[in-house]
């Protein structure tokens, strides 16, 4: 890949910021606008930017496809698992109240976990999609 | 045996026999033994059924209920009993004949052939015993489908093309016209049960009833009323045993049988008498009688000629049924039997000629009467039946049709009978002349194998015997008109 100096510098500068913002959206989802879905997309956007600028090999180097696949599955598992956990704890599905000793803590914990699961899955899937688009181009 | 069991055995015996045939696939002799035994047993049970019926037993069998008011059920009535005995009775010689034919021709797929034949017979039994229109329709379609492999048995391009016409016409008419007619009937009458005196009286305006009747008559493509007749000549690509039993007896008779049942048990002759359009259908049938005879005049292929003759004769029955007079109905019933005997004999003879002499055209029959006296004598008897000359079965049935036409004051029917008799003579007699009064030519050959000869002689004999001993059949068909006040 031809190197674009300006692009790569701007990217290097931007990517951490975007990542940081993703985490902000992720954890702020508890209280305000935000949440796992949006955060996952923003996170993925950063990685996709890296992918676009530095190429597949470079990105794959620190986020391997295998990890992404597991991540995508894991996120869903976390999400569904929380629900099942609440079931097992005697409540209804996704009834966070029963997850901890008191209801508020349970709510916090439940939402945190669920959002995390969603975020992981969304990010992983988005990045996977980007990977596979990239791959297709090279295969052809 | 209880009557219900008997009915079930009529229906299932051919199927069971067919299944066993498949198992005996690799042992031709055993297979043929099974075939003949099955045919004999079927005939016996049909006969037993007929006897039970004549003793006045109620023969009714509810097989299953598809939907409320929509069941598969069987009930024996005179015409059905007659039809069942006829079809299974003629199956016996036909199976013999088929064995001889297939062996002599060294046909492939003989087991498949016999199997589908069994299925077709079973379907015919179902039609004969059907207690309501739906059951009849179901078996009607089964018959259509199960005969397709028989029609296309030879498997060449011509057979496939003929088979396509066959299937296309029969299915298109039955689904496009018969089924809607049935639905309409159900909608209007709320039932499809065959009931003495009909189920439509007072429920349908006469004008609409005329339309419904038209749908029935044309929808039953198997009756081959013009313009729905084209499948019959097309079906002549079939091996001759098929043409013989199915296209002279089972399939075509299933058609006219259906029309008769509809006229008698759905419309009721009393109600139909008030339907003005019914007359026009008589005219249509009469036209078919004449037109098909005229077309038959110019046929050179024996089987095609016979096919057109069949079309003509079938319309006789339809015409007689639609005349609505008791005697005409009797005549229709008798003609079903008489024509069956005669036409199956003719087809048998045609097939025997094909097997023994490899000839298919009328113009090649010179002197055949010398070479194959048995075959051609049978052919002559069949031809006389078609013309309706004594001493043949056709005389008896035409007698009643004429009487019925008088009863109904339908002079049109009389005119048709006069004309068609002359026409029949014109296309049948030249064949006889050729066969008996001309010198044979070409390579010398003998008769066809004995099973075929036995078959065709026995049906010819039946045709003559029916002339003398028609009393039981007459009694049965008379009781049909008893059911139609």
């Amino acid at each position, binding site marked *: 890949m031809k190197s674009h100096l300006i692009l790569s510098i701007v990217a290097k500068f931007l990517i951490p910021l975007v990542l940081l913002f993703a985490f902000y959206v992720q954890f702020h989802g508890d209280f305000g606008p935000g949440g796992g879905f949006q955060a996952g997309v923003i996170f993925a956007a950063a990685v996709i930017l890296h992918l676009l600028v530095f190429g597949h090999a470079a990105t794959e180097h620190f986020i391997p496809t295998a990890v992404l696949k597991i991540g995508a599955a894991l996120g*869903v598992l976390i999400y569904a698992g929380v629900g099942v956990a609440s079931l097992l704890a005697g409540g*209804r599905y996704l009834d966070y109240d029963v997850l901890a000793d008191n209801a508020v803590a349970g709510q916090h914990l439940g939402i945190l976990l669920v959002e995390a699961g969603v975020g992981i899955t969304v990010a992983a899937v988005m990045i996977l999609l980007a990977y596979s688009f990239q791959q297709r181009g090279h295969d052809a | 045996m209880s009557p219900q069991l008997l009915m079930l055995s009529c229906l299932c015996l051919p199927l069971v026999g067919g299944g066993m045939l498949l198992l005996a696939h690799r042992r031709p002799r055993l297979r043929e033994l099974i075939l003949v035994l099955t045919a004999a047993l079927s005939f016996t049970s049909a006969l037993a059924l007929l006897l039970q019926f004549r003793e006045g037993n109620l023969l009714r069998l509810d097989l299953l209920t*598809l939907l409320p008011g929509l069941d598969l059920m069987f009930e024996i009535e005179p015409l059905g009993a007659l039809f069942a005995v006829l079809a299974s009775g003629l199956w016996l010689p036909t199976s013999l004949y088929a064995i001889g034919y297939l062996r002599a021709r060294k046909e492939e797929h003989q087991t498949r052939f016999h199997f589908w034949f069994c299925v077709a017979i079973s379907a015919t039994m179902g039609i004969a015993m059907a207690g309501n229109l739906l059951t009849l329709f179901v078996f009607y379609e089964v018959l259509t489908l199960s005969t397709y492999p028989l029609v296309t048995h030879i498997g060449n391009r011509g057979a496939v093309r003929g088979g396509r016409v066959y299937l296309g016409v029969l299915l298109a008419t039955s689904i496009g016209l018969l089924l809607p007619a049935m639905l309409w009937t159900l909608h209007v009458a709320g039932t499809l049960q065959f009931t003495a005196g009909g189920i439509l009286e007072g429920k349908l305006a006469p004008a609409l009833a005329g339309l419904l009747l038209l749908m029935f008559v044309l929808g039953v493509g198997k009756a081959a009323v013009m313009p729905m007749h084209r499948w019959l000549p097309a079906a002549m690509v079939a091996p001759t045993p098929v043409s013989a039993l199915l296209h002279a007896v089972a399939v075509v008779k299933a058609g006219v049988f259906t029309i008769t049942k509809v006229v008698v048990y759905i419309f009721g002759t009393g109600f139909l008498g008030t339907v003005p359009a019914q007359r026009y259908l008589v005219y249509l049938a009469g036209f078919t009688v004449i037109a098909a005879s005229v077309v038959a005049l110019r046929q050179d292929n024996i089987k095609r000629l016979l096919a057109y003759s069949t079309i003509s004769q079938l319309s006789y029955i339809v015409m007689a049924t639609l005349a609505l007079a008791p005697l005409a109905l009797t005549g229709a019933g008798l003609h079903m039997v008489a024509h069956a005997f005669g036409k199956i004999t003719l087809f048998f003879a045609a097939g025997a000629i094909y097997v023994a002499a490899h000839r298919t055209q009328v113009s090649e029959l010179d002197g055949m009467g010398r070479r194959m006296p048995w075959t051609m004598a049978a052919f002559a008897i069949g031809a006389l039946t078609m013309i309706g000359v004594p001493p043949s079965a056709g005389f008896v049935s035409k007698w009643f049709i004429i009487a019925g036409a008088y009863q109904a004051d339908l002079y049109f029917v009389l005119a048709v009978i006069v004309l068609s008799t002359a026409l029949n003579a014109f296309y049948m007699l030249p064949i006889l002349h050729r066969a008996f009064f001309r010198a044979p030519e070409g390579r010398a050959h003998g008769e066809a194998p004995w099973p075929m000869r036995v078959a065709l002689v026995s049906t010819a004999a039946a045709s003559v015997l029916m002339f003398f001993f028609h009393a039981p059949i007459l009694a049965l068909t008379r009781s049909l008109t008893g059911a139609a006040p």
Partner: protein
Amino acid sequence: MREHLPILLVVLPMLAAPICSMLPRGRQAWLLATAVSWAVLAIAASLLIRVHAEGTISYALGGWPAPIGIEYRLDGLNALVQVLVAAIAACVLPFSGRSVQDEIDADRQPGFFALLLLLITGLLGIVATGDVFNVFVFLEISSLATYGLIAFGRDRRALLAAYRYLVLGSIGATLYLIGIGLLYALTGTLNMQDLAARLPAVADTRTAQTAITLVMVGLGIKMALFPLHLWLPNAYRFAPSAISAFLPATATKVAIYLMLRFVFDIFGVGFAFGRLELNEVLLALAAAAMLSASLAAMQQRDVKGILAYSSVAQVGYIVLGAALATPIGLTASLLHLFNHALMKGALFMAMGCVMLRVGRTDLDAIRGLGRRMPWTAAAFVVAGLSLIGVPLTAGFISKWYLVLAALEAGWWPLVILILVASLMALIYVWRVVALAYFAPNESQRREEAPLSMLVPLWLLVLANIWFGIDTRLSVAMAESGMRVLMAGPP
């Protein structure tokens, strides 16, 4: 645990999907997915029985009661559709073992089964939920899974087909989303029952009418209602065998279910059909679907293409019954929804068997099939007869009801239409059957599909016969579903 069954039904495949994707071997994934599908079937069946015994089941997610929280609500209608989806899944998954092994690279197989489980999740979720937005979420889950699954097809054109479906499906979903957005703006609720209760007050607004239109068009795309079906034929044709067996039997059915739910339970017949006269549009489209798609099916050169177009036509039948909006019409519609799933599933499965042994499904591949694969060919014939509507098969029963409904409503032309379309079905089925049995084929070697494929196939085929002869169960189910719909909005 018993009270949680409604949610477990949805969650079970959802949990299994990621696990599947992480399994190393396709075989293991397949075993897991199969086991899950059977469990799901068991749950769905028990739920159906419970609904019939105890009446509607409501399950609030997260402990928030309706209308605020998300509610799963099972009644006679959607319990039936769930069983249908679960049953088809339970048949297709065992079947898919061999065919996936044959058609998909080993390393991608776990992903395939994961997606399939997700698809099942999505479909079951759509059916179970009583919340219109939740519907959207599951719709997206199922759609995304579908796009992915279609793209697994061996043929290069599969990717294009998946892409087209993706575009159109997204448009549909978006329209749906806008529609429910408008509704939410009007009424302030997303719960179906609540929505139904509040809608009459605002029915006269253009917003409401536009919303309905948007929802209907969105769903129309999903259910492949003519002329919005353009994505369907190629998608079905090029998808892996297991998927083309699964999708037509379930995905469009679920979309149709959703449309019925919206029209009858949320908008109300009086509004959607009476005021907006949507039934006329539906009738016209259904008629066009039956004729045009059947005509197209008659001329396809590929059996899967034939079946795909036939599916479009059959959607027409189902919509036709519904558009009559009479009890018997709805019964017919639901019956056909159920029966068509059985027959089309069987037909596509038969083609899966052919794909396995012959490697293609065009008409030439069918030549002499009756000899080569007798059981498969026989299954095709029986299911084909059902598709035509021959008596003693399931297809006959539903068409019979449909005709009765048309007669009752006094719509004579519809009767003709149904019969003509059946005749066309006869023709396109016959083309295949005739080739299978009456076309000479030089290679007469017998190579039947493995039992693992034949058994599920024949299960469906026998179901076709069973429900053609003993109609008590299916008709009772359809009627109970019909009663739910006819009861209308609360």
